[in-house]
């Protein structure tokens, strides 16, 4: 019986989370346990379109909960468990939902060696997937969110998965993480966007998440072919323009910033090379979002 998370009442959601909520995102099934209210709220707001599963094989058994102990009342903390192991130090209890998202990323990046994994966002339009490598501070997440809200299909905002057998991009379609000013920029430009609770003072600053469009989630099983790699850079007052980016440089960038290029050995080289072979590589500078959207639309038309 295929049920989406959004079809559960909040009470039902909480109750399932208490003993294990079975959620699928792209190729991965997560069994999520939590008694933390922010986790329930975050999932209800941001994952309503995701399919729930019943029994069988789950890729990752995870838990986010308050940490018990003397600090439980004074400065409460929460932590993330993967199958009984705590890979992180505890965080303030308010950061429970971002912790869930980071934990899910950690599970994938740390274990899904079956794929070549790049640190990049990837979106598709008109059958063409554009990869946005994630250099910090470059405005990638703002751009990703804007494209997602402008008719582009979201495949991933953080980890780009490449299938080792056919070289295609495998979607996750999970929420887009927004930081600091991005949150206000997106709210202002897209008033209808659904954004989850804001977490203040995380190690990444102020963090919130954008709900992926229903259609992106509905198409999470459709792989896509990459045609462009674009290195974005926001610069005040810049006019939106594309510049040539060396393929060799893009190759090395993808390899050094990837999660498992080295681990895959020769296969990593071949998969990465095939990607660069088939993609046009660009630098992209912009200041106004509307201009950026226009340029991207032209890129894939």
């Amino acid at each position: 019986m295929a049920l989406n998370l959004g079809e559960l009442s909040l009470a039902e959601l909480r109750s399932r989370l208490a003993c294990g909520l079975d959620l699928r995102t792209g190729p991965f099934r997560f069994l999520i346990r939590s008694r933390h209210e922010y986790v329930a709220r975050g999932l209800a707001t941001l994952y309503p379109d995701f399919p729930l599963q019943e029994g069988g094989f789950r890729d990752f058994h995870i838990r986010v909960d308050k940490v018990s102990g003397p600090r439980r009342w004074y400065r409460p903390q929460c932590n993330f468990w993967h199958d009984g192991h705590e890979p992180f130090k505890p965080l303030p209890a308010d950061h429970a939902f971002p912790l869930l998202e980071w934990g899910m990323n950690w599970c994938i990046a740390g274990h899904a060696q079956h794929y070549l994994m790049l640190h990049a966002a990837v979106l598709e339009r008109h059958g063409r997937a554009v990869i946005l490598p994630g250099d910090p501070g470059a405005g990638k997440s703002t751009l990703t969110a804007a494209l997602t809200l402008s008719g582009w299909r979201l495949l991933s905002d953080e980890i780009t998965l490449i299938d080792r057998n056919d070289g295609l991009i495998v979607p996750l379609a999970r929420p887009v993480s927004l930081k600091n000013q991005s949150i206000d920029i997106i709210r202002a430009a897209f008033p209808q966007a659904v954004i989850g609770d804001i977490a203040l003072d995380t190690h990444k600053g102020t963090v919130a998440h954008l709900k992926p469009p229903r259609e992106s989630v509905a198409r999470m099983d459709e792989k896509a072919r990459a045609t462009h790699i674009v290195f974005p850079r926001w610069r005040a007052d810049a006019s939106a323009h594309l510049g040539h980016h060396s393929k060799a440089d893009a190759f090395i960038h993808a390899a050094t910033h990837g999660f498992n290029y080295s681990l895959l050995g020769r296969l990593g080289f071949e998969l990465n090379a095939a990607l660069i072979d088939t993609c046009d590589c660009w630098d992209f500078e912009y200041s106004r979002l509307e201009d950026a959207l226009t340029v991207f639309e032209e890129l894939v038309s």
Partner: protein
Amino acid sequence: MRPACGAFLHALREPAVMAGFDTQIWDHVIRQARAAGLLGRLGALASGFSERLPEAVWRHLEAALTLAEQQRRAVHWELGQLSRTLASIEGPVVLLKGAAYAAADLPPAAGRIFTDIDLLVPQAQLGTAELALRLDGWFTSAHDAYDLRYYREWMHELPPMRHIRRQTLLDLHHNILPETSRRKTQPALILAAALPLAEFPRFSIPEPADQVLHSATHLFHEGEWQHGLRDLADIDALLRAYGADAAFWPRLLARAATLNLGRPLYYALRYARHLLRTPIPEEAIATCPERSGSVSGAVMDALFLPAFASAHAECRAAFSGIASFLLYVRSHWLRMPVHLLIPHLLRKAFKPVE
């Protein structure tokens, strides 16, 4: 052991049963295998019929195999480099455990993941070896003077060394038991019987009986019970491969007596047979030097069997945590005299976690 653990052990004993596991069973088995450090081994055992496994399950097994393959390649590269670094060492340089299995493509190598390269050299060559490694970019990773002393004076190792560029970890040994251990053995005999590798003439591996004995000694003396089942699986793989030759068993027992390693061998045989159904001639166990009597055997069973299961929460019996701790104390008891043991354990308990 609980029913949830039954399928995992069954898979290790009889790999073909994996083709019939449903997704519910796999949901347990994959996690147990990962906790025990045996995900790669399951992958290797299932690789002949991988198309019959659920795709999602095979992805995890293949991921572990990818990692193991990468380490196998890295060991080959590392040995090539180390052949030059250690060219001036007199006498054999013997690879132990994971590095030996990978370098010589021995049965336990399939899908096995290991972290360090373990080398055994003659005691007289230890200083020369350490210096040669330092000059080639290896540096020690001990934290402070106490750790340094712990390693150098009391244990049988220098602190682990790491290569500055390649980041590989290396452990240099001159014995397989620490100086402070109650049990004494003769590493010179292991070195003398070692067999040079065709591909890397600078390096040797222990002869087959010594491979088994070293693995058994390491398992029962090191205290690393998180990987107890994995080490037992190594022993199982070695015994299945070598034990087919009837002449192997008397040689193994005689060697155990010569090297004074009868007791660890006895435990290895006993628990490999019990948990992994390793085919072992009844006579081998019955005539094993230092086999324990039935009373202390039962006590040891109560201690060891839960410890082998302790890797994953689902397999843990109520007392397994205590069993693990007792074994850890026992392993250290075997290694250090009591007056040194208590301060050391206290110190380990309170050292700040990185």
